[in-house]
């Protein structure tokens, strides 16, 4: 495999090259922890300063279209509308990827499309889930290493909204999967070159987690699995953190009452006991979160936190998180 280094000179490199040095950023985590959100924010962060990035999803869920409130994405790289940073979106569909592949190596042409109606393609990718993964990662690799006529890289970075932690090892371990397939031929060559990219410093797998027991457990398990596969691990991104209110102090009833009086608020029993109880629940939660932070720290990976945005995630939210990722060194 030929991996040309970037022809953009050092001048074109921006500060965050040091914080996010890889070219292919794979974002995984337990289901619902914020993989799609964080992947989008990272694509924005890496596009800052006029670079072009590609944000890819591979699970056929149209998560990116939902996030950006767009019509379902076709199997084509489209620029995110509304100008701003040059972020392109791509939803890789395994069926389309197989057709593209067949076309390339077996000249199936348009005839292949007719097979879709028969369900043949679904069948082929189903009996060999490894084939599906090789095709999907193959497409990601192609985009990551693509160059234009002048030999410059088309994308400064590619960010993959990847399958969840439970499936990430198998998804990225393409050579093992391909070994079950043909022993020869283009699929073998392809999977070897994908495997080489995924094990090179060009790749970095980031783990998104919440400060909850199961996501932290899955992060730990995934790191062990990926290390065993020699796949480079990037950062642990702790998502949706809450402000550390009342972190290391006791709130007494007397103090609370004095404060409420000063603010002109009622100090009846219900108000006081409710606020105290809410404060205690918050502290209990916080204590648990601190313990989980400790467990994550023991994994000895660079860690950063993204706050819970109280109004949920929209385009402005993605940009805000992108700013925080960019600032993180």
């Amino acid at each position: 495999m030929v991996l040309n280094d970037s022809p953009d000179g050092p001048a074109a490199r921006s500060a965050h090259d040091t914080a996010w040095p890889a070219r292919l950023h794979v974002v995984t985590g337990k289901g619902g922890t914020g993989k799609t959100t964080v992947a989008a924010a990272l694509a924005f962060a890496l596009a800052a300063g006029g670079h072009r990035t590609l944000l890819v999803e591979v699970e056929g869920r149209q998560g990116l279209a939902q996030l950006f409130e767009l019509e379902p994405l076709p199997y084509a790289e489209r620029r995110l509308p509304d100008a701003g940073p040059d972020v392109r979106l791509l939803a890789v569909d395994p069926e389309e990827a197989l057709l593209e592949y067949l076309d390339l190596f077996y000249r199936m042409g348009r005839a292949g499309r007719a097979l879709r109606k028969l369900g043949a393609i679904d069948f082929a990718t189903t009996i060999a889930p490894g084939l599906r993964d090789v095709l999907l990662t193959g497409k990601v690799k192609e985009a990551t290493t693509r160059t234009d006529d002048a030999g410059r890289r088309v994308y400064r970075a590619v960010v993959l909204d990847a399958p969840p932690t439970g499936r990430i090892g198998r998804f990225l371990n393409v050579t093992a999967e391909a070994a079950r397939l043909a022993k020869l031929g283009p699929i073998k060559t392809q999977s070897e070159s994908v495997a080489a990219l995924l094990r090179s410093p060009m790749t970095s797998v980031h783990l998104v987690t919440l400060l909850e027991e199961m996501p932290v457990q899955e992060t730990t398990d995934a790191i062990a699995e990926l290390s065993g596969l020699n796949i480079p691990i990037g950062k642990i991104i702790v998502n949706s953190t809450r402000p550390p209110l009342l972190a290391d102090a006791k709130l007494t009833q007397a103090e609370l009452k004095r404060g409420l009086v000063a603010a002109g608020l009622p100090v009846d029993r219900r108000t006081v006991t409710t606020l105290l109880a809410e404060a205690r629940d918050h502290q209990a939660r916080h204590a648990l979160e601190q313990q989980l932070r400790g467990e994550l720290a023991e994994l000895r990976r660079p860690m950063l936190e993204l706050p819970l945005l109280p109004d949920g995630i929209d385009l402005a939210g993605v940009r805000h998180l992108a700013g925080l990722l960019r600032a993180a060194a």
Partner: protein
Amino acid sequence: MLDVDAVLGDPRVRIVVCCGSGGVGKTTTAAALALRAAEKHGRRTVVLTIDPARRLAQSLGLTELDNTPRVVDGVDGPGELHAMMLDMKRTFDEVVLTHTAPERAREIFANPFYQAMSSTFSGTQEYMAMEKLGQLRAGDRWDLIVVDTPPSRSALDFLDAPARLSRFLDGKMLRLLMVPARAGGKSMFNLVTASFGVFSKAVQKILGAQLLTDLSGFVSALDSTFGGFRERAEQTYRVLQDPQTAFLVVAAPEPDAVREASYFARRLGAERMPLVGLVLNRVHRSELPELSAKQSTEAAAELAEEHAMTAQALEVHALLMRQVARESTVSTDFTDEFPDVPVAHVPAQPTDVHDLTGLRAVGDALAAS
């Protein structure tokens, strides 16, 4: 309002299925309901869990994966609680053994394709959950079977995956693929059949001849016995349409989860499967709703210097009130569409739920709403 005790205490209800998208608390809800059925309603109950959180599994005594129900220690009251964790591979093996002569079964087990499929095929887990439910029901050992569903990305997978696997195993497509390419043959005039020949050649090249051979060995070994296999799944599917079954859709009060819950509720309606309610899990509420987020935030700003602690307590309250507001918008979306589906609210516990005490608290909350 959902009357959980009426469901759990009704002797005609024999199966409770907890479904919903991943991570919303299906396993927790299933375990809490089963515990309550045993403790408060005196029923001989078994809970079939799938992929429980490690510490919950430990406190249910699910330390060994032996694919059979084990009694749960520490249960009070007149009933019994047994728990088991689904072992998908083992269940598949059992199915093969029941429907096949021993030599044939050995052949199937040795087939590399079987090995891959029984542990990784998407849909196998759903199918095997259905199969295990059928087995548990057959013995008449249990008054009530509470079923957790696999952590699929979509709640609908539980209903769809078995049919998908059946279609696959009946081997039509495979027989087509195995036919040597005869694209040049005289009878092949249309584009589809012609390209199929080319396609199957290409597929053989890509997948390798060995895989296709393994696959066809597997399918033909299974062919003779597959009738029984499928019949059983169809029977179980019909039981799910019977009033002895009660479906509960579990959702977190978040847009994605509630959207999934709506899809599922619609689908259950279409399949005439008895949906008894929605469980909104991990909801937040405040006993002090009259102190609004805005008011609280303003007071906090005012007190920041002189009364820092009170200010922070008010900020905590403001955060909570905002969350309550967000959650209530989301749950209204569901109740607007399904005004007849009763809802139970389970408050977010301050810490994870991983012992019987926690499960009892969840059970009480379910019954109280």
